[in-house]
């Protein structure tokens, strides 16, 4: 995958939840989906995806089910659960607040007294 921005620490889970929210997908598919959505700008360590998926599955935020992939191989498809959907909304709101605040700080011209 092409060079791009390193993702911020702690945001991988949020990205995965978002990707899976668009429809059930297997591991490589999640990666491709994130790559396509970010127009190749986000650089994700491929192997790190799986521990994150397992962690989310253990927390009950995604559910993995075995099925067949496009090349007719057995693959594990991950889907968002109801708690996962709630968590995604929460994290997204938090993220937007953070980005808004960052923008305010970084876009400031002068300090108003």
């Amino acid at each position, binding site marked *: *995958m092409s060079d791009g921005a390193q993702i911020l620490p702690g945001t991988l889970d949020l990205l995965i939840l978002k990707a899976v929210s668009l429809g059930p997908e*297997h*591991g*490589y598919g999640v990666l491709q989906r994130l790559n396509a959505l970010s127009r190749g700008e986000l650089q994700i*360590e*491929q*192997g*790190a995806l*799986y*521990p*994150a998926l*397992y*962690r989310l*599955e*253990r927390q009950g935020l995604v559910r993995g089910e*075995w099925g067949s*992939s496009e*090349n007719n*191989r*057995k*693959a*594990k498809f991950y889907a968002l659960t109801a708690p996962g959907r709630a968590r995604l909304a929460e994290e997204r709101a938090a993220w937007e607040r953070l980005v808004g605040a960052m923008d305010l700080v970084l876009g400031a011209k002068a300090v108003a007294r």
Partner: protein
Amino acid sequence: MKALSSLLAWFRRAARRDRFESGMSEEIAHHLALRAADLEHEGLAPAEARRRAQLEFGADERWKEECREAAGYAPLDALRGDLRDAARSLRRSPGFTLVATLVLGLVLTVDLLAFAFADAYLLRPLPIAEADRHVELVATVEGGREQWQFDAAEGEALVASAGRVIAHAYRFGLHRPAVLEPSPRRTYAEVVSGTWFDLRRPRFAAGRAFGVWGGLDEREPVAVLSDAGWKRLLAADPQPIGRSLLVDGVAFTVVGVLAPAEGGLEPVVPELWLPLAAAERLLPLSPPARFGVGGILRPGVSPEQAAAALAPVLATGSSEARTLRAHPRTTLLRESRELAPLTLSLLFAFALLTAVAAANLTGLHLARATARRRDIAVRAALGASRGRLLRPLVLEGLLLGGGALLLAWMLARLAVAAVEGAVFSLALQAGLVLTPVGISTTALLACGGLAATVGALGSLLPALQATRVDLRSGLGRDGTLFGGRLGAGRLRGALVVGQVAASLGLLVGAGLIARNAARADDVDTGFALAGLVDLNAVHADAGLVARLSASPGVRSVAATAFTPLAGGLPRIDATVDGVRQRLGHNVVDERFFDTLGLRVVRGRGLAAGDRGVVVVSESTARLLWPEADPLGRRLDLERGDGGPEPFAVVGVVSDAASGFFFEGRDRSMVYLPTGPEPPGELLLRVTGDARAGLPALREACADQDVLCEPVPLADLLARQRMPFTALSAVALALGALALGLACLGLHGLVAFAVARATREIGVRVALGATRGAVLRGVLAGAARQAARGVAFGLPPCLALSALLAAQVPQLQAFDAAVYALVPLLLLAVATAAALPPAWRAARVDPVVALREE
């Protein structure tokens, strides 16, 4: 069953784990294949595409490890690793593993056996529904004497009016009838009302019960057999139903046989159950005269309410003032005030032994941990946390506990029948069958808990000490033999002192029991036991007496109501000079004193045809008329229902011990003359060995068509002693095991100290110390430890003795021989245990020792 389901769960988890691993590998392989396909699509050669895909992904194993952690398998994996480490380290020191497993295993075997017995008789609920509400009625007579049985009329009245407060109210009595057919023998029966079976509802191998539940009329002469009864009375006939048994001369038809493990509500399993209604109607002479009354409290009724509701029934029945109580009885053995101190002391002894094993195990672990300090220090230096260092050490203890439990289970299974035979030999000798003791799941679980606790505790303390390492000293060497600066050695010393003290306690206990039993053996019965035989005949008559008297080996034959030493002395209410009291009594014929060998001290003995006269024992004469001449004095005795009858004393005979042997000679004894009916039991004195003469006696009985089971009086006494013999054997076994463990501990301590002080010994020898001096030095050290143990152990022993002496006045709690010999024995054995390492120390070659470092 429980073990099976937990095993299944374990397999399920292990299977899921395998699926987890294969799924993870498949996912990663799938990922790599797709990525390689994409790269190929971008124009790379297939081989290069695969290489690049793997490169981008990174090392599989690293991500897999993170996945396992994310999925929550990490603690399980760590535990597995630690377990593997612990098992490996135990395998590497087979000597330690073997000794530790044996130490814990042997003690657990003893504990498991104790648990099994306690479970079978004291803990397991009675085999009935709602056993927790089972009660027995007890009347307390003035003076606190308890009456567990009622006469026929009273028992019937109680059962009849119990319905409102007690469900399934039943009556039951013990009976030893003679079964004449199919094979003549005296048997052991329970005579019960039909409600007894309605409550008990046992499993049947064949047929059914009498009573409502069984659906058979209890007024008919029917009989239900236990498994033992079926084997003994019917020789395990495959078609037992409908067979006839001639019980006390009346034919009873067998209607049911219980399944093998089934019994009644008493520790002794009878051979047969007879319906009370039929027995009272058909066996007017022989049925039991007294009955226990029990049942299940109705819901919401308290024992007090039940007793209050039934008290009026009792009040109308008798002149004596009695209070009624409904006593909850939920297990086979009744709790009794007499048994409680015994049970408690046994419990204490077992706890003490287990503590000795724990101390011993701790000592073993300590030696090992100290030897491994270097290893532990190295791991600590490499950054392992304390918890990380502790875990495998404690797991080792748990593994040892598991192994020991397995060993204990196997040994206990092998030993339980033998121990049962030894402990209950009294009952078995008398032909009684007892509720079998098995190693139950409950006992195994309890022992498993003990094994885990002792196993973990034994390893925890040394592990804590070993992991509190100071890197410098851990990596260096320390400790001297003679200077006493042994560090962990001090803890080991304390453990050994504790073990010696505990084994002193157990051995003194065993010694005291054995000495008291032996003292009881020396009880002067007042008559010569040799040659005396209790004929134990059913319906002896004049013809039999004549036939026996004419037999060549028989010196004399006497009739008596109560055979001396056959049980507790029967008592009778007497009024002497206006004072009421209970006196021991017997009904005997004119040949009794001569046969038993009692001397007539004053007046005369009894003569044929005597009426209204009695002969008393010397001690009775002293008790009743300390100052005056007993001859011609008057006693009013209440025998039967006829009220007091006057008797005149015509003679005084020498004292004898005729009740329980531990009560010694009878405090009081009044001999009444026989009436026109012979009193029932025949006592014989034969020439020569009593046991050798038994076949001839049986033959004489058979000639007269009388069933008899002659028993030498010496055997009756031996049966009485059996519980004491069994108890002292148990105590002795516990004491010996504790002593063995203490010796092992001491041996280990000295061997360890010697091994660590090899260099110092070498220096001393090089400087001119003789081998004898080294040997003496090491042995003296061991003897000092043992002496310290004795010094610590003696005061609690003496305190316990004082307590016992206050509780049980008949007991000789301070026995000089025991208190002198046990400490000496302990010192000698403990010092001997140190001999092998001391010998090794004495043979240290200074050249080798000094070159060692």
